[in-house]
């Protein structure tokens, strides 16, 4: 809840602490917020017929709010159930994809490009979260990167855009 007390660069954590906005927990929350926003852009770029993915992304955004509350010093640790749900979602996408032959260059269909952006923002959020003593959130972020990589490939496949292999 914004009550207009942050003009001097100090904010409140859910733990009640007043901390500078450069605090690692605030930084991690900011990354999670950015990730949720990029996921919104990804959802908006999905094609018709990807309602399932759209629903999954909405669910992920909700999970990120739970994770953010914990990172911000909240009192309720996230459960491990969402990690399992995300694993299954990634596996379901991967089942419909050809095996990887090597590194892929991020891009292709706009939705695939957004999925790759989301994946890299997710990795950054994971790195920031790793600096915070809240290890309970790390498995979800790690699985989310896997899911987003599979979703990027799925987006290209559904839209008939060939994947671009890296040729070292």
């Amino acid at each position, binding site marked *: *809840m914004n009550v207009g007390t942050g003009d*001097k660069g*100090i904010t409140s954590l*859910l733990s*009640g*602490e007043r901390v500078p906005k450069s605090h690692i927990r605030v930084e991690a929350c900011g990354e999670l917020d950015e990730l949720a926003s990029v996921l919104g852009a990804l959802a908006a770029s999905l094609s018709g017929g990807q309602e399932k993915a759209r629903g*999954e992304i909405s669910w992920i955004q909700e999970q990120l709010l739970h994770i953010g509350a914990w990172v911000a010093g*909240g*009192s309720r640790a996230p459960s491990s159930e969402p990690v399992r749900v995300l694993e*299954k979602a990634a596996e379901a996408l991967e089942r419909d994809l050809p095996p990887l032959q090597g590194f892929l260059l991020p891009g292709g269909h706009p939705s695939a490009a957004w999925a790759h952006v989301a994946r890299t923002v997710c990795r950054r959020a994971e790195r920031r979260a790793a600096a915070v003593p809240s290890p309970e959130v790390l498995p979800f972020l790690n699985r989310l990167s896997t899911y987003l990589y599979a979703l990027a490939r799925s987006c290209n496949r559904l839209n008939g855009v060939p994947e671009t292999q890296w040729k070292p």
Partner: protein
Amino acid sequence: MEAVGSPQPVKRPARVLRCAPLSESAFEIELERPRDFSFEAGQSIRVYIGGEGRDYSLAGSPSAQTLLLVVRRIAGGAVSPALADAAPGSLFDFTGPHGVFTFRPSPRPVVLVATGIGIAPFLSMVRRGTVGFTLLHGARSADELFHRRELETAAARYVPCLSRQASPGCFDGRVTAWARDHLPPGTFDFYLCGGRQMARDMILLVDERFPGSRVYTEIFF
């Protein structure tokens, strides 16, 4: 993949047991408590009238048989006038419990700061057994210091603060003025519940005068 998606909060009906005035504009309403409903002191429920929902902190003990709300009637409001006029037996939908404004024991001294009906979550905490705190109880006039006697008994220090009408035994001014002028330097756990301006002024005061303190805030609109 199994279905994903967070379930929408389940609306459940609650029957009105009684409704009683606390002052000219505030009242207490007691609702039947669903058997499977539990909450922590400091949490709220969202009451729905005609599709509109409003959040109200629960003022009763978490172990009480009924649910108790302290509500201010807002003229033209979507929910509070209907609650104020509710006859016993009326049914309202609600969701909850919501919120994280719950008491966290700590080694630091506790300062509760309430204005108006912002006293509701602190009543719940007191009725759950919380004692030994300083309570800055703000109101416009003495008749709006709801449940004063009960709170005085539980508090280590009870400070009634009246912003518009002087009264014997009460500080003549806002809770923030009392905190600024009388609270000794130190590190505290502040719990703030009331209007946005009070919360803002208190937080700025904490940053300036009580660094290292913790601040938990619940805003009432």
